[in-house]
């Protein structure tokens, strides 16, 4: 059991990734503003699917609830409340957007290549389904009988909660890191969002 290449997961990733890229291109090239918002749904839904593929269940559900259920719906609501033409709007795409697209693409590729190379160096990374991998099995075998019992109890407790996800996917891990390790940044962001909200109300009010 040296190789951990998970073929179905890699195929699924490929299919989803292609769908996301096609949809993302359609978001900026379509000449119907409502279609652009609907293509965005495909992009965000695809990202959610990749989270599921990575077994980050909680993050995936938040992605669907917040991005598709709330943000895109508010986009569409705003568009339809102001103007929602059924045909094409010719001024939605023009020649100068190509320049912007090239600049953005170059910056994005630079950042992504840098961060991937910087974090992984020459490690080989595959989609590995969470499993009792070889190293963990070895560690478990090295434990004393008593310690093994404790580990099994913990595993059973997790099983009773109805989840067999990796440590990253478990809701407890997410909540622990938000409300313990990153509590202050989290609160600061909430205050920032509140300030933005109040600002929007102040700007929108006419009296």
């Amino acid at each position, binding site marked *: 059991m040296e190789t951990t290449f998970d073929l179905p997961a890699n195929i699924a990733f490929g299919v989803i990734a292609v769908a996301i890229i096609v949809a993302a291109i359609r978001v900026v090239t379509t000449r*119907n503003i*409502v*279609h652009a918002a*609907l293509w965005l*749904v495909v992009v965000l839904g695809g990202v959610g699917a990749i989270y599921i593929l990575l077994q980050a*269940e*909680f993050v995936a*559900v*938040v992605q*669907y*609830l917040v991005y*598709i*259920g*709330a943000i*895109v*719906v*508010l986009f*569409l*609501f705003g568009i*339809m*409340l102001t103007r*929602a033409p*059924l045909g094409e709007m010719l001024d939605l795409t023009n020649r100068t957007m190509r320049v912007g697209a090239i600049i953005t693409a170059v910056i994005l590729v630079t950042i992504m290549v840098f961060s991937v190379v910087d974090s992984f160096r020459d490690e080989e990374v595959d989609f590995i389904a969470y499993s009792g991998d070889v190293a963990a099995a070895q560690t478990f075998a090295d434990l004393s009988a008593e310690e093994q019992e404790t580990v099994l109890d913990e595993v059973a407790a997790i099983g009773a*909660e*109805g*989840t067999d*996800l990796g440590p990253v*996917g*478990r*809701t407890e891990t997410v909540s622990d890191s938000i409300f313990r390790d990153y509590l202050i940044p989290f609160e600061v962001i909430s205050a920032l969002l509140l300030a933005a909200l109040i600002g929007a109300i102040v700007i929108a009010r006419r009296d």
Partner: protein
Amino acid sequence: MGLLAFELAYWQQTVIKMLVVAVAVPGAAFVLGYVFLFKMLSFMQSRLGPMEAGPYGTLQLIADGVKFLQKEDILPDRADRFVFKAAPAVVLISTFLLFVVIPAGPNAIVEDLGVGIFFALAVSSLSVLGVLMAGWASANKFSLMGGLRATGQLIAYELPLVLAVVGVVIQAGTLSMQGIVNAQSGGEIFGWGGLGNPFLLTQFLGLVIFMIAVQAELTQVPFDMPVAESELVGGYHVEYTGFRFLFFFMGEFGTAFAFAAIAATLFLGGWALPDSWGVSGTAMHVLGPIILVAKVMILSFFVFWVRFTYPRFREDQLQQLAWKVLIPLSLVNIVATGILKVAF
């Protein structure tokens, strides 16, 4: 699959689960439509309702369904073809996904997700997208108005719906639907376990807020501004005929059943009987679904009772009820539950 002597392969289980959900959604819509929309409404108005098709008119909805399937599939001339056709499917998919996490017995659940109830709330919010798509793509100002009204209403009532659930989640200490059922059947009221601990007792405020929000999510009277016949003809589905209209109908009644089942699971103990009664797990495989459906029918009765009794809210009353009453109340409920959870 604990009852079977043999293990089914993963794909076989998946096929069976998909078939069960595919039958459950129209079945649920059929039961609610017949029992409440046809019969209860008729009795409340001192008439018999459908009596001809089948004994006591039981087959009336099937006859109506066949009628819908035979109708011409009309596409408005200026409609956005693809979006118009996709919209009912989006609404129906959201309903199908809701049924994934509803437990009807010890093993009778499509998938006991760790994020259970949170998943249900997330997929229920997807139906708004279908409503907006339908309203816009119909190229009809009544449809667009209906779609906009529906969205404004669904966004406003999504919040109390989610916040009302938080109290239950704090008390149960888990998001998993089976976990919430077990927390109630195994719970005790001050050391007395005769009834378990249905969250109906401690979270009564949560149940009331949840059911009001469900009423609004379903755009049922008194929250039927989006589909008000006298103002908008039919709102976002005014241009839909035939099987596409049937999709919206199944979506509405299927979602009503699903939300009643979720409320029964969260607040009334779901499929389970209290542990102290000592009913064996094997018996619960059979009793569970019956108990759940009984609770669903009781809760649906309230939903439809309100629907057939009250007049329509005005738009401003509707928004004020959500933002100034339900959301503050549910926040108070969360704080109180949190404090009591830590105290006990």
